[in-house]
Protein backbone atom coordinates (compact mmCIF):
# COMPACT_ATOMS: atom_id res chain seq x y z
CA UNK A 1 0.00 0.00 0.00
CA UNK A 2 1.12 3.56 -0.71
CA UNK A 3 0.47 6.60 1.48
CA UNK A 4 -0.56 9.99 0.15
CA UNK A 5 2.96 11.22 0.93
CA UNK A 6 4.31 8.70 -1.62
CA UNK A 7 2.34 10.34 -4.45
CA UNK A 8 4.43 12.03 -7.14
CA UNK A 9 4.37 12.84 -10.82
CA UNK A 10 4.65 9.74 -12.99
CA UNK A 11 3.43 7.28 -10.32
CA UNK A 12 0.80 4.77 -11.49
CA UNK A 13 -1.93 4.00 -8.99
CA UNK A 14 -5.18 2.09 -8.87
CA UNK A 15 -8.30 4.23 -8.40
CA UNK A 16 -11.84 2.86 -8.47
CA UNK A 17 -10.43 -0.27 -10.13
CA UNK A 18 -8.70 1.52 -13.01
CA UNK A 19 -4.99 2.26 -13.49
CA UNK A 20 -4.15 5.99 -13.44
CA UNK A 21 -0.91 7.85 -14.02
CA UNK A 22 -0.28 11.07 -12.07
CA UNK A 23 0.48 13.74 -14.67
CA UNK A 24 0.50 16.75 -12.37
CA UNK A 25 1.23 16.85 -8.64
CA UNK A 26 1.11 19.59 -6.06
CA UNK A 27 1.60 19.38 -2.30
CA UNK A 28 -0.47 21.92 -0.42
CA UNK A 29 -0.95 22.85 3.22
CA UNK A 30 -3.36 25.77 3.37
CA UNK A 31 -2.92 28.04 6.38
CA UNK A 32 -1.23 25.55 8.72
CA UNK A 33 -4.08 23.15 8.01
CA UNK A 34 -3.79 19.56 6.98
CA UNK A 35 -1.68 18.36 4.08
CA UNK A 36 -3.45 18.03 0.77
CA UNK A 37 -2.13 16.30 -2.33
CA UNK A 38 -3.59 17.81 -5.50
CA UNK A 39 -3.26 15.47 -8.46
CA UNK A 40 -4.19 15.43 -12.11
CA UNK A 41 -4.59 11.81 -13.10
CA UNK A 42 -4.93 10.22 -16.52
CA UNK A 43 -6.93 7.04 -16.81
CA UNK A 44 -4.58 4.67 -18.61
CA UNK A 45 -7.43 2.73 -20.22
CA UNK A 46 -9.60 5.49 -21.70
CA UNK A 47 -7.12 8.40 -21.59
CA UNK A 48 -9.47 10.74 -19.70
CA UNK A 49 -7.92 13.15 -17.22
CA UNK A 50 -9.40 14.01 -13.86
CA UNK A 51 -8.39 16.26 -10.92
CA UNK A 52 -8.47 14.83 -7.42
CA UNK A 53 -7.34 16.15 -4.04
CA UNK A 54 -6.24 13.57 -1.47
CA UNK A 55 -5.64 13.81 2.28
CA UNK A 56 -2.65 12.44 4.12
CA UNK A 57 -4.57 9.55 5.68
CA UNK A 58 -5.65 8.10 2.32
CA UNK A 59 -4.06 4.88 1.09
CA UNK A 60 -3.38 3.77 -2.45
CA UNK A 61 -2.58 0.63 -4.33
CA UNK A 62 0.06 0.61 -7.02
CA UNK A 63 -1.44 -0.29 -10.41
CA UNK A 64 -0.04 -3.65 -11.46
CA UNK A 65 1.16 -3.02 -14.97
CA UNK A 66 3.38 -5.12 -17.17
CA UNK A 67 5.29 -4.19 -20.32
CA UNK A 68 6.25 -6.53 -23.12
CA UNK A 69 8.13 -5.89 -26.31
CA UNK A 70 6.06 -6.99 -29.34
CA UNK A 71 6.04 -6.66 -33.11
CA UNK A 72 3.26 -4.91 -35.05
CA UNK A 73 1.86 -7.23 -37.72
CA UNK A 74 -1.12 -5.68 -39.52
CA UNK A 75 -4.45 -3.97 -39.02
CA UNK A 76 -7.86 -5.25 -39.99
CA UNK A 77 -10.70 -2.77 -39.71
CA UNK A 78 -10.33 -1.24 -36.25
CA UNK A 79 -8.16 -4.07 -34.91
CA UNK A 80 -4.38 -3.78 -34.71
CA UNK A 81 -2.52 -7.09 -34.38
CA UNK A 82 0.76 -7.61 -32.53
CA UNK A 83 2.97 -10.64 -31.94
CA UNK A 84 5.43 -11.65 -29.22
CA UNK A 85 8.47 -12.66 -31.32
CA UNK A 86 9.63 -15.16 -28.68
CA UNK A 87 6.39 -17.04 -27.99
CA UNK A 88 4.57 -16.21 -31.27
CA UNK A 89 1.58 -15.29 -29.12
CA UNK A 90 -0.69 -12.83 -30.94
CA UNK A 91 -3.11 -10.23 -29.62
CA UNK A 92 -4.93 -7.17 -30.84
CA UNK A 93 -5.71 -3.64 -29.66
CA UNK A 94 -8.49 -1.36 -30.87
CA UNK A 95 -8.04 1.82 -32.90
CA UNK A 96 -9.18 3.76 -29.82
CA UNK A 97 -6.38 2.23 -27.74
CA UNK A 98 -3.78 2.89 -30.45
CA UNK A 99 -4.99 6.53 -30.68
CA UNK A 100 -2.50 8.91 -32.38
CA UNK A 101 0.17 6.18 -32.48
CA UNK A 102 -1.57 5.09 -35.70
CA UNK A 103 0.28 7.96 -37.41
CA UNK A 104 3.66 6.25 -36.97
CA UNK A 105 2.83 2.54 -36.95
CA UNK A 106 4.32 0.52 -39.80
CA UNK A 107 4.48 -3.23 -40.39
CA UNK A 108 7.10 -5.14 -38.33
CA UNK A 109 7.73 -2.19 -35.99
CA UNK A 110 8.93 -3.15 -32.50
CA UNK A 111 6.69 -1.57 -29.88
CA UNK A 112 6.13 -1.90 -26.13
CA UNK A 113 2.69 -3.19 -25.19
CA UNK A 114 1.34 -2.23 -21.77
CA UNK A 115 -0.79 -4.79 -19.90
CA UNK A 116 -3.14 -4.16 -17.00
CA UNK A 117 -4.38 -7.30 -15.19
CA UNK A 118 -3.21 -9.35 -18.16
CA UNK A 119 -5.05 -7.35 -20.86
CA UNK A 120 -3.29 -5.05 -23.34
CA UNK A 121 -4.34 -1.41 -22.82
CA UNK A 122 -1.76 0.75 -24.60
CA UNK A 123 1.38 0.76 -26.73
CA UNK A 124 4.54 2.84 -26.60
CA UNK A 125 6.47 3.49 -29.80
CA UNK A 126 10.16 4.16 -30.22
CA UNK A 127 10.75 7.91 -29.75
CA UNK A 128 12.11 8.27 -33.29
CA UNK A 129 10.73 6.37 -36.30
CA UNK A 130 11.73 6.51 -39.97
CA UNK A 131 8.87 6.87 -42.44
CA UNK A 132 8.76 7.02 -46.25
CA UNK A 133 7.32 10.14 -47.87
CA UNK A 134 4.54 9.19 -50.24
CA UNK A 135 3.43 12.62 -51.31
CA UNK A 136 5.19 16.00 -51.42
CA UNK A 137 5.04 19.00 -53.69
CA UNK A 138 8.20 19.20 -55.82
CA UNK A 139 11.00 21.46 -54.60
CA UNK A 140 11.35 24.56 -56.73
CA UNK A 141 14.99 25.59 -56.44
CA UNK A 142 15.43 29.26 -55.75
CA UNK A 143 11.96 29.52 -54.27
CA UNK A 144 12.08 32.68 -52.21
CA UNK A 145 8.45 32.81 -51.18
CA UNK A 146 9.65 32.79 -47.59
CA UNK A 147 7.87 29.64 -46.44
CA UNK A 148 10.36 27.37 -44.72
CA UNK A 149 8.11 24.31 -44.44
CA UNK A 150 5.52 22.51 -46.53
CA UNK A 151 3.05 19.70 -45.85
CA UNK A 152 4.20 16.17 -46.77
CA UNK A 153 2.36 12.84 -46.49
CA UNK A 154 4.11 9.73 -45.13
CA UNK A 155 3.36 6.03 -45.70
CA UNK A 156 0.92 5.83 -42.76
CA UNK A 157 -1.20 8.61 -44.30
CA UNK A 158 -0.04 11.10 -41.66
CA UNK A 159 0.56 14.66 -42.89
CA UNK A 160 3.22 16.82 -41.24
CA UNK A 161 5.29 19.93 -41.94
CA UNK A 162 8.76 19.34 -43.41
CA UNK A 163 11.44 21.49 -45.06
CA UNK A 164 10.89 22.36 -48.77
CA UNK A 165 13.70 20.05 -50.00
CA UNK A 166 11.88 16.87 -48.87
CA UNK A 167 10.57 14.96 -51.90
CA UNK A 168 8.41 11.98 -52.61
CA UNK A 169 10.42 8.78 -51.97
CA UNK A 170 12.61 10.35 -49.27
CA UNK A 171 12.71 8.80 -45.81
CA UNK A 172 12.35 11.11 -42.86
CA UNK A 173 12.73 10.74 -39.11
CA UNK A 174 9.73 11.77 -36.98
CA UNK A 175 9.52 12.31 -33.21
CA UNK A 176 6.55 10.22 -32.04
CA UNK A 177 6.12 12.33 -28.88
CA UNK A 178 5.45 15.53 -30.79
CA UNK A 179 4.66 14.27 -34.29
CA UNK A 180 7.29 16.63 -35.67
CA UNK A 181 9.86 16.25 -38.45
CA UNK A 182 13.43 15.73 -37.18
CA UNK A 183 15.67 15.05 -40.20
CA UNK A 184 15.98 13.38 -43.59
CA UNK A 185 17.56 9.93 -43.35
CA UNK A 186 19.45 7.79 -45.86
CA UNK A 187 19.03 4.04 -45.55
Amino acid at each position, binding site marked *: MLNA*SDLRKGLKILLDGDPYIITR*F*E*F*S*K*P*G*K*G*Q*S*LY*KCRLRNMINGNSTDR*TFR*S*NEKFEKASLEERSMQYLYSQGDEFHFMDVNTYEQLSLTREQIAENVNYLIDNMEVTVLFFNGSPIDITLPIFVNLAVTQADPWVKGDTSGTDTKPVTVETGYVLQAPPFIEEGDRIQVDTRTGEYITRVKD
Partner: protein
Amino acid sequence: MISGLRLRQRAAVFRAVRLFFEERDYLEADTPLLLPVLAPERWIEPFTAGDLFLQTSPELCMKRLLAAGHARLYQICPCFRKGERGGRHLPEFSMLEWYRAGIDYLALMDECEELVKSVALECSARKLFAKPAGCFRLDIPFERLTVAEAFGKYARCDENAALAAGCYEEVMVEEVEPHLGKGGRPTFLYDYPAGLASLARRKSEEPALAERFELYADGIELANGFSELTDPVEQRCRFEEERRLILSTGREPGPIPERFLAALHDMPEAAGIALGLDRLVMLMTGAATIDEVVCFVPEEL
Protein backbone atom coordinates in the same frame (compact mmCIF):
# COMPACT_ATOMS: atom_id res chain seq x y z
CA MET B 1 22.41 22.89 -6.70
CA ILE B 2 21.36 26.51 -6.81
CA SER B 3 22.51 28.61 -9.79
CA GLY B 4 25.02 31.42 -9.25
CA LEU B 5 22.38 34.03 -10.05
CA ARG B 6 19.83 32.60 -7.62
CA LEU B 7 22.44 32.36 -4.85
CA ARG B 8 23.27 36.05 -5.28
CA GLN B 9 19.58 36.96 -5.43
CA ARG B 10 18.90 34.96 -2.28
CA ALA B 11 21.70 36.76 -0.43
CA ALA B 12 20.32 40.11 -1.63
CA VAL B 13 16.82 39.29 -0.30
CA PHE B 14 18.24 38.23 3.09
CA ARG B 15 20.23 41.46 3.25
CA ALA B 16 17.21 43.60 2.34
CA VAL B 17 15.19 41.90 5.09
CA ARG B 18 17.88 42.56 7.73
CA LEU B 19 18.19 46.15 6.56
CA PHE B 20 14.44 46.68 7.03
CA PHE B 21 14.49 45.44 10.62
CA GLU B 22 17.70 47.26 11.54
CA GLU B 23 16.20 50.54 10.37
CA ARG B 24 13.21 49.90 12.64
CA ASP B 25 15.19 49.10 15.76
CA TYR B 26 14.38 45.41 15.77
CA LEU B 27 16.83 43.15 17.56
CA GLU B 28 17.96 39.98 15.76
CA ALA B 29 17.60 36.95 18.04
CA ASP B 30 18.85 33.41 17.43
CA THR B 31 17.08 30.95 19.68
CA PRO B 32 18.02 27.22 19.92
CA LEU B 33 16.94 24.86 17.15
CA LEU B 34 16.99 21.78 19.39
CA LEU B 35 14.11 21.90 21.84
CA PRO B 36 12.76 19.54 24.51
CA VAL B 37 9.17 20.74 23.98
CA LEU B 38 7.20 22.25 21.09
CA ALA B 39 3.81 23.89 20.77
CA PRO B 40 1.49 20.95 20.02
CA GLU B 41 0.10 21.39 16.52
CA ARG B 42 -2.22 18.91 14.94
CA TRP B 43 -1.02 19.23 11.38
CA ILE B 44 2.70 19.76 11.95
CA GLU B 45 4.87 16.74 12.59
CA PRO B 46 8.33 17.42 14.06
CA PHE B 47 11.61 15.58 13.50
CA THR B 48 13.12 14.07 16.62
CA ALA B 49 16.83 14.24 17.40
CA GLY B 50 17.72 11.96 20.30
CA ASP B 51 15.52 13.06 23.21
CA LEU B 52 14.90 16.43 21.59
CA PHE B 53 12.95 17.93 18.70
CA LEU B 54 14.15 20.06 15.82
CA GLN B 55 12.12 23.25 16.01
CA THR B 56 9.08 23.59 13.75
CA SER B 57 9.09 27.34 14.46
CA PRO B 58 10.96 29.65 16.88
CA GLU B 59 7.62 30.98 18.16
CA LEU B 60 7.71 29.88 21.81
CA CYS B 61 11.28 31.04 22.47
CA MET B 62 10.64 34.34 20.72
CA LYS B 63 7.60 34.99 22.93
CA ARG B 64 9.58 34.18 26.06
CA LEU B 65 12.07 36.87 25.01
CA LEU B 66 9.15 39.21 24.36
CA ALA B 67 7.81 38.47 27.86
CA ALA B 68 11.29 39.27 29.22
CA GLY B 69 10.89 42.82 27.95
CA HIS B 70 12.37 42.83 24.42
CA ALA B 71 9.68 44.72 22.52
CA ARG B 72 10.90 44.28 18.92
CA LEU B 73 12.50 41.03 17.84
CA TYR B 74 13.14 39.24 14.59
CA GLN B 75 14.77 35.98 13.66
CA ILE B 76 15.90 34.25 10.47
CA CYS B 77 16.31 30.53 11.03
CA PRO B 78 15.77 27.06 9.62
CA CYS B 79 12.58 25.22 10.60
CA PHE B 80 11.91 21.51 10.20
CA ARG B 81 8.61 19.81 9.40
CA LYS B 82 8.28 16.16 8.53
CA GLY B 83 6.58 15.07 5.31
CA GLU B 84 6.31 18.51 3.71
CA ARG B 85 7.68 18.37 0.17
CA GLY B 86 6.33 19.98 -2.96
CA GLY B 87 6.89 22.86 -5.33
CA ARG B 88 6.60 25.31 -2.43
CA HIS B 89 7.53 23.06 0.52
CA LEU B 90 10.71 21.61 1.94
CA PRO B 91 11.09 19.59 5.15
CA GLU B 92 13.83 22.09 6.10
CA PHE B 93 13.17 25.69 5.13
CA SER B 94 14.12 29.22 6.11
CA MET B 95 11.70 31.16 8.24
CA LEU B 96 11.55 34.84 9.07
CA GLU B 97 9.61 35.58 12.25
CA TRP B 98 9.11 38.92 13.91
CA TYR B 99 7.31 40.07 17.06
CA ARG B 100 6.37 43.48 18.27
CA ALA B 101 4.88 44.54 21.58
CA GLY B 102 2.04 47.05 21.73
CA ILE B 103 0.48 46.41 18.30
CA ASP B 104 -2.31 44.18 17.02
CA TYR B 105 -2.69 42.13 13.85
CA LEU B 106 -4.02 45.03 11.77
CA ALA B 107 -0.93 47.14 12.48
CA LEU B 108 1.24 44.08 11.82
CA MET B 109 -0.45 43.64 8.42
CA ASP B 110 0.68 47.18 7.59
CA GLU B 111 4.21 46.41 8.69
CA CYS B 112 4.26 43.17 6.70
CA GLU B 113 3.18 45.07 3.58
CA GLU B 114 5.93 47.62 4.21
CA LEU B 115 8.52 44.85 4.56
CA VAL B 116 7.54 43.10 1.31
CA LYS B 117 7.47 46.40 -0.59
CA SER B 118 10.75 47.51 0.94
CA VAL B 119 12.47 44.24 -0.08
CA ALA B 120 11.03 44.59 -3.60
CA LEU B 121 12.32 48.18 -3.85
CA GLU B 122 15.74 47.21 -2.51
CA CYS B 123 15.97 44.31 -4.99
CA SER B 124 14.69 46.37 -7.92
CA ALA B 125 17.57 48.78 -7.38
CA ARG B 126 20.06 45.99 -8.04
CA LYS B 127 21.16 44.66 -11.41
CA LEU B 128 20.56 41.09 -10.26
CA PHE B 129 16.78 41.39 -10.49
CA ALA B 130 14.23 41.98 -13.21
CA LYS B 131 12.36 45.23 -12.65
CA PRO B 132 10.19 45.50 -10.73
CA ALA B 133 11.38 42.61 -8.53
CA GLY B 134 8.43 40.62 -7.27
CA CYS B 135 6.14 41.50 -10.19
CA PHE B 136 3.57 43.30 -8.08
CA ARG B 137 2.60 46.95 -7.95
CA LEU B 138 4.31 49.05 -5.30
CA ASP B 139 2.06 52.08 -5.83
CA ILE B 140 -1.22 50.57 -4.62
CA PRO B 141 -2.07 48.98 -1.26
CA PHE B 142 -2.30 45.21 -1.01
CA GLU B 143 -5.83 43.81 -1.22
CA ARG B 144 -7.50 42.97 2.10
CA LEU B 145 -10.26 40.38 2.30
CA THR B 146 -11.77 38.70 5.33
CA VAL B 147 -12.00 34.91 5.10
CA ALA B 148 -15.80 35.32 4.98
CA GLU B 149 -15.55 37.80 2.06
CA ALA B 150 -13.14 35.53 0.16
CA PHE B 151 -15.38 32.47 0.55
CA GLY B 152 -18.42 34.58 -0.43
CA LYS B 153 -16.63 35.78 -3.53
CA TYR B 154 -14.96 32.60 -4.75
CA ALA B 155 -16.31 29.47 -3.04
CA ARG B 156 -19.42 27.36 -3.46
CA CYS B 157 -20.23 27.63 0.26
CA ASP B 158 -19.32 29.85 3.22
CA GLU B 159 -16.38 28.99 5.48
CA ASN B 160 -18.55 27.78 8.36
CA ALA B 161 -20.44 25.37 6.12
CA ALA B 162 -17.11 24.12 4.76
CA LEU B 163 -15.77 23.62 8.30
CA ALA B 164 -18.93 21.79 9.34
CA ALA B 165 -18.71 19.53 6.28
CA GLY B 166 -15.02 18.81 6.95
CA CYS B 167 -13.88 20.18 3.60
CA TYR B 168 -12.56 23.63 4.58
CA GLU B 169 -9.03 22.95 3.36
CA GLU B 170 -10.18 21.46 0.05
CA VAL B 171 -12.46 24.45 -0.70
CA MET B 172 -9.66 26.81 0.33
CA VAL B 173 -7.11 25.14 -1.94
CA GLU B 174 -9.34 24.47 -4.93
CA GLU B 175 -11.67 27.47 -4.99
CA VAL B 176 -10.27 30.35 -2.95
CA GLU B 177 -6.46 30.29 -3.07
CA PRO B 178 -6.19 30.30 -6.90
CA HIS B 179 -7.71 33.82 -6.89
CA LEU B 180 -5.53 35.34 -4.18
CA GLY B 181 -2.69 37.76 -4.81
CA LYS B 182 -3.19 37.76 -8.58
CA GLY B 183 -2.82 40.53 -11.15
CA GLY B 184 0.22 42.11 -9.51
CA ARG B 185 -1.57 42.79 -6.23
CA PRO B 186 -0.85 40.64 -3.15
CA THR B 187 -3.82 39.78 -0.91
CA PHE B 188 -4.18 39.71 2.87
CA LEU B 189 -6.78 37.22 4.06
CA TYR B 190 -7.83 38.00 7.66
CA ASP B 191 -10.29 37.23 10.47
CA TYR B 192 -10.02 33.44 10.49
CA PRO B 193 -12.50 31.11 12.22
CA ALA B 194 -11.21 30.85 15.82
CA GLY B 195 -10.66 27.09 15.60
CA LEU B 196 -7.96 27.62 12.97
CA ALA B 197 -5.56 29.64 15.12
CA SER B 198 -4.31 27.92 18.23
CA LEU B 199 -1.99 30.72 19.40
CA ALA B 200 -4.00 33.75 18.25
CA ARG B 201 -6.24 36.08 20.24
CA ARG B 202 -9.99 36.04 19.56
CA LYS B 203 -11.68 39.23 18.43
CA SER B 204 -13.27 40.68 21.53
CA GLU B 205 -16.36 41.88 19.66
CA GLU B 206 -16.67 38.66 17.64
CA PRO B 207 -15.21 35.70 19.58
CA ALA B 208 -15.95 33.22 16.78
CA LEU B 209 -13.12 34.89 14.86
CA ALA B 210 -9.39 34.98 15.54
CA GLU B 211 -7.22 38.06 14.93
CA ARG B 212 -5.15 36.23 12.38
CA PHE B 213 -4.10 36.98 8.79
CA GLU B 214 -2.25 35.39 5.92
CA LEU B 215 -0.51 37.04 2.98
CA TYR B 216 -0.77 35.59 -0.54
CA ALA B 217 1.24 36.81 -3.49
CA ASP B 218 0.90 35.36 -6.97
CA GLY B 219 -0.74 32.21 -5.60
CA ILE B 220 2.01 31.70 -3.00
CA GLU B 221 1.06 31.62 0.69
CA LEU B 222 3.78 33.85 2.08
CA ALA B 223 3.09 34.68 5.72
CA ASN B 224 0.88 33.93 8.72
CA GLY B 225 0.49 36.50 11.49
CA PHE B 226 -1.76 37.24 14.44
CA SER B 227 -2.43 39.16 17.63
CA GLU B 228 -0.84 36.98 20.29
CA LEU B 229 -2.99 35.18 22.80
CA THR B 230 -1.61 36.29 26.18
CA ASP B 231 -4.08 34.46 28.46
CA PRO B 232 -2.21 31.44 29.92
CA VAL B 233 -5.44 29.71 30.97
CA GLU B 234 -6.98 29.81 27.52
CA GLN B 235 -3.64 28.91 25.92
CA ARG B 236 -3.37 25.81 28.14
CA CYS B 237 -6.89 24.73 27.10
CA ARG B 238 -5.98 25.11 23.43
CA PHE B 239 -2.77 23.11 23.86
CA GLU B 240 -4.75 20.34 25.59
CA GLU B 241 -7.22 20.36 22.70
CA GLU B 242 -4.41 20.13 20.12
CA ARG B 243 -2.86 17.26 22.07
CA ARG B 244 -6.20 15.40 21.98
CA LEU B 245 -6.37 15.92 18.21
CA ILE B 246 -2.78 14.70 17.76
CA LEU B 247 -3.61 11.57 19.78
CA SER B 248 -6.66 10.97 17.59
CA THR B 249 -4.41 10.86 14.51
CA GLY B 250 -2.29 8.15 16.14
CA ARG B 251 0.74 10.34 16.89
CA GLU B 252 2.25 10.77 20.33
CA PRO B 253 1.84 14.40 21.45
CA GLY B 254 4.79 15.96 23.27
CA PRO B 255 4.44 17.51 26.73
CA ILE B 256 2.75 20.87 27.41
CA PRO B 257 5.25 23.76 27.11
CA GLU B 258 5.05 24.76 30.77
CA ARG B 259 7.84 27.36 30.75
CA PHE B 260 6.21 29.12 27.84
CA LEU B 261 2.84 29.15 29.64
CA ALA B 262 4.53 30.53 32.76
CA ALA B 263 6.12 33.30 30.68
CA LEU B 264 2.72 34.26 29.19
CA HIS B 265 1.85 35.87 32.54
CA ASP B 266 4.42 38.56 31.77
CA MET B 267 3.80 38.84 28.09
CA PRO B 268 2.68 42.26 26.81
CA GLU B 269 0.00 42.72 24.19
CA ALA B 270 1.82 41.92 20.97
CA ALA B 271 1.54 40.66 17.43
CA GLY B 272 3.82 38.24 15.66
CA ILE B 273 4.27 36.75 12.21
CA ALA B 274 6.05 33.94 10.40
CA LEU B 275 7.07 34.45 6.77
CA GLY B 276 8.52 31.78 4.48
CA LEU B 277 11.80 33.34 3.42
CA ASP B 278 12.48 30.88 0.58
CA ARG B 279 9.06 31.78 -0.80
CA LEU B 280 9.88 35.48 -0.54
CA VAL B 281 12.96 34.77 -2.67
CA MET B 282 10.70 32.89 -5.13
CA LEU B 283 8.42 35.91 -5.32
CA MET B 284 11.26 38.39 -5.85
CA THR B 285 13.00 36.28 -8.49
CA GLY B 286 9.98 34.78 -10.24
CA ALA B 287 11.32 31.26 -9.58
CA ALA B 288 8.71 28.61 -10.36
CA THR B 289 9.62 26.23 -7.53
CA ILE B 290 11.29 26.41 -4.13
CA ASP B 291 13.94 24.02 -5.49
CA GLU B 292 15.37 26.88 -7.56
CA VAL B 293 16.06 29.18 -4.62
CA VAL B 294 17.68 26.94 -1.98
CA CYS B 295 21.33 25.85 -2.11
CA PHE B 296 20.46 22.14 -2.17
CA VAL B 297 17.19 20.22 -2.04
CA PRO B 298 17.05 17.06 0.11
CA GLU B 299 17.10 14.79 -2.95
CA GLU B 300 20.56 16.17 -3.90
CA LEU B 301 22.22 15.52 -0.54
